[in-house]
């Protein structure tokens, strides 16, 4: 079985075994008799093999890949962000609860200066999905204005220069996009994709985990705890079932 099929079959199990969740009951008396996995608590693997759902425009994908592959380039330590699936990872994340900001408090009044001063960094009432939609367009507009070419056509050195300028707060982007904080969002998500379980579409072949020596979704280190300070040479495992 190929990995993508496995991902899909895991997802299919969600629909075929969907029983009424005990959590739906308003009143519980006695111990719930349903002890199989709650359908709403099974992991939701990234959609694989289909079209992008959030990054539907090719130029946005190219811009994002250009940024991600300078944040995590291909080198002797491992593949690049895009080779490791970080674009697919982020597309999937943005298509779901994270992207829609389901957990966030988005009510007003919105007082950006006050909130930034009090919290030490800005807070946003746009969702992550909205921030990417605006941010990628702003990066493209910036490249067109300063260099006269598409962002993805810039040289690696020039992209590095722009990213460093964003990181240090020296470059601001058009249309009110705060460059420093869009940089931080992309850096966070690129590295999440590189280091999260491969079930979410990134960290392909567990490349991020192999890079640092993290054994992954293991659940028992009792045989190893007393091998103090030693290289354990553990092969990483993920939440995706082995063949």
């Amino acid at each position: 079985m190929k990995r993508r099929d496995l991902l899909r079959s895991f997802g299919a199990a969600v629909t075929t075994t969907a029983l009424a969740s005990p959590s739906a009951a308003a009143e519980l008396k006695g111990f719930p008799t349903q002890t199989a996995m709650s359908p709403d608590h099974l992991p939701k693997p990234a959609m694989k093999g289909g079209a992008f759902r959030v990054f539907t425009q090719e130029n946005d994908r190219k811009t994002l890949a250009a940024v991600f592959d300078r944040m995590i380039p291909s080198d002797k330590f491992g593949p690049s962000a895009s080779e490791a699936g970080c674009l697919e990872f982020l597309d999937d994340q943005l298509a779901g609860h994270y992207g829609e900001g389901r957990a966030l408090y988005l009510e007003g009044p919105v007082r950006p200066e006050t909130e930034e001063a009090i919290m030490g960094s800005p807070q946003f009432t746009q969702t992550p999905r909205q921030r990417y939609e605006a941010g990628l367009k702003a990066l493209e507009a910036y490249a067109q204005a300063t260099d006269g070419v598409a962002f993805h056509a810039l040289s690696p050195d020039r992209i590095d220069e722009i990213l460093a300028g964003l990181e240090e707060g020296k470059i601001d982007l058009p249309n009110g996009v705060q460059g420093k904080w869009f940089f931080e969002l992309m850096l966070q998500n690129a590295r999440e994709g590189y280091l999260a379980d491969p079930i979410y579409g990134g960290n392909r072949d567990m490349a991020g985990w192999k890079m640092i020596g993290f054994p992954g979704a293991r659940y028992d280190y009792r045989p190893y705890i007393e091998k103090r300070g030693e290289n354990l040479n553990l092969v990483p495992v993920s939440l995706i079932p082995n063949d």
Partner: protein
Amino acid sequence: MTIERPKADVVICGLGWSGSVMAEELTRAGLNVVAIERGAWRDTSTDFPPAVDPDELRWHTRRELLQPMSVETTTFRNRMDQTAAPVRNWSAYQFGWNVGGAGTHWAGMSWRFTPWDFEIATQTRERYGAAKGDGMLLQDWGVTYKDMEPYYDRFERIAGTSGIAGNINGEIKPGGNPFEGPRSRDYPTPPLKDTFWMREFREASDRMGYNPFTIPAGNISQAFVNPLGVTMGPCTYCGFCDFHGCGNFSKSSPQACILPALMRRPNFTLLTETEVLHAVKHDDGKTAKGVKFITKEGVEGFQPADIVVITAYQMDNVRLMLLSGIGEQYDPVTGKGTIGRNYTYQTCGTVNGFFPDKYTNPFIGGGALAVQIDDFNGDNFDHSGLDFIGGAGIMGYSTNGRPIQNMNNLRPGSKRWGSAWKEAYARDYNQGAGIFIQGTSMPVRDAYLDLDPDYRDRHGQPLLRLTFDWNQNDKNMLKYTVDRSVEIMREAGGQDIVVDNQAEHSWNPYMQHSSHTIGGAVMGADPTTSAVNPFLQSWDVHNVFVVGASAFPMNGGYNPTVTVGALAVRAAQAIHQTYVNNPGPLVKG
């Protein structure tokens, strides 16, 4: 349409640790108990078995076990002259959510507070003179450590706590914490094993003349059957612990320790996905007649009860009192009122170091896997020549090696992106180790809670507003204990040391290492300075009990959970042994 439910003896608002402990005691005593929990039912096999638990992105990065801000958040400002802002995103706060509350996702560090903590005002005055406490709202808890010991013991037995005793009935035991208050007996299960870093920290602090010990843990070390007949299994050091549920029944939690017994009691009823809006008082205002709630479908209802027990998270305990009109809002200008008073946090720092040529294997971890010294905690050392009171536990910890969480734990000067980041993380991940400095927090006049005038929750009720910044005492304390920690890291051989003293910057909820938010409805023997009496009974409305870390009048240099659990046992026993036979104030004000 509204729902009018049959009357209960007791209604419990929130089914985390406090609610579960209270419900277990009260149903065992024969009372008819209804618990109302705004989150969903959650259990080990259905929601976090080993096949889904080791997932950093879902549980730690996206925090799926925590209360979302869209459900309810708080607002915050440092000073009274500022306009508070709402906490919109995930921060250091880890408010409980769903059945089990914060007891499902906590780390498991299972401390008793010291005898000094409970009598901080008296003991500080007697040892150093009254001026030592100037500028602080120091007040005793109204209970002593000795009063608390049987309840600590009971909660530890329910939780299966692992550890090694340092003081049994006054006799100091080798290997344990010689500074702890006297225990009546040893821990239920033996201490966890040392990781590489714990061993290095232990040996270094021992060489320096300190007293290292394995910390008490809600990650239990061997199979254990607790007094409720529930079986727990040994911790596997999986490193997916705090922020995660435990699939092994190894982490003390309501699910692993209490709910299997509690849910089977016929006199217990649980309403899930139902939120208590506030308590409702009788017309005379002297007692409550029940609580108003709203279901997830938006239908309001009323649960009548003879006794109302508020066991939400600390912040929500205070908020529910304010929304219910129980007690008087504290005013930092006049000093009058008690609800919102004595808010404290946890004053923390970290010292990280790197060990070339070693594999620290940080992925071998447990939420409460650590070796600590208490030589600089509480009042265990002489403060005569020092410009502060209090102190900190200093621990070499092995809680986790989650790769996203640790991706910036790099040697100084490392880059966060590009090949330079990859090279640095590949080098440093398996060489890093850390010391956590978990310090006391002292109450001051202008650190308090009230209702926000502008921001509201999804039901239109005002959010709770926090006004807080580090006070000078706690800054001085942390400077001192961080310096001691750097010395230990050097002695242990850690190189390229990175120090984070959190009190060097103004407090805000996004920057903290600790989630411990404390006080605001504090216990005490004086009704002019405390919201609840030493049995956690409201001074103002005698059939309302408010249970949680909201009751601590200050914060010790420890995690709060076991003290919360012990206070819950004590309050529940006071209810079923005394209050139900003669309803009224248990203590004269």
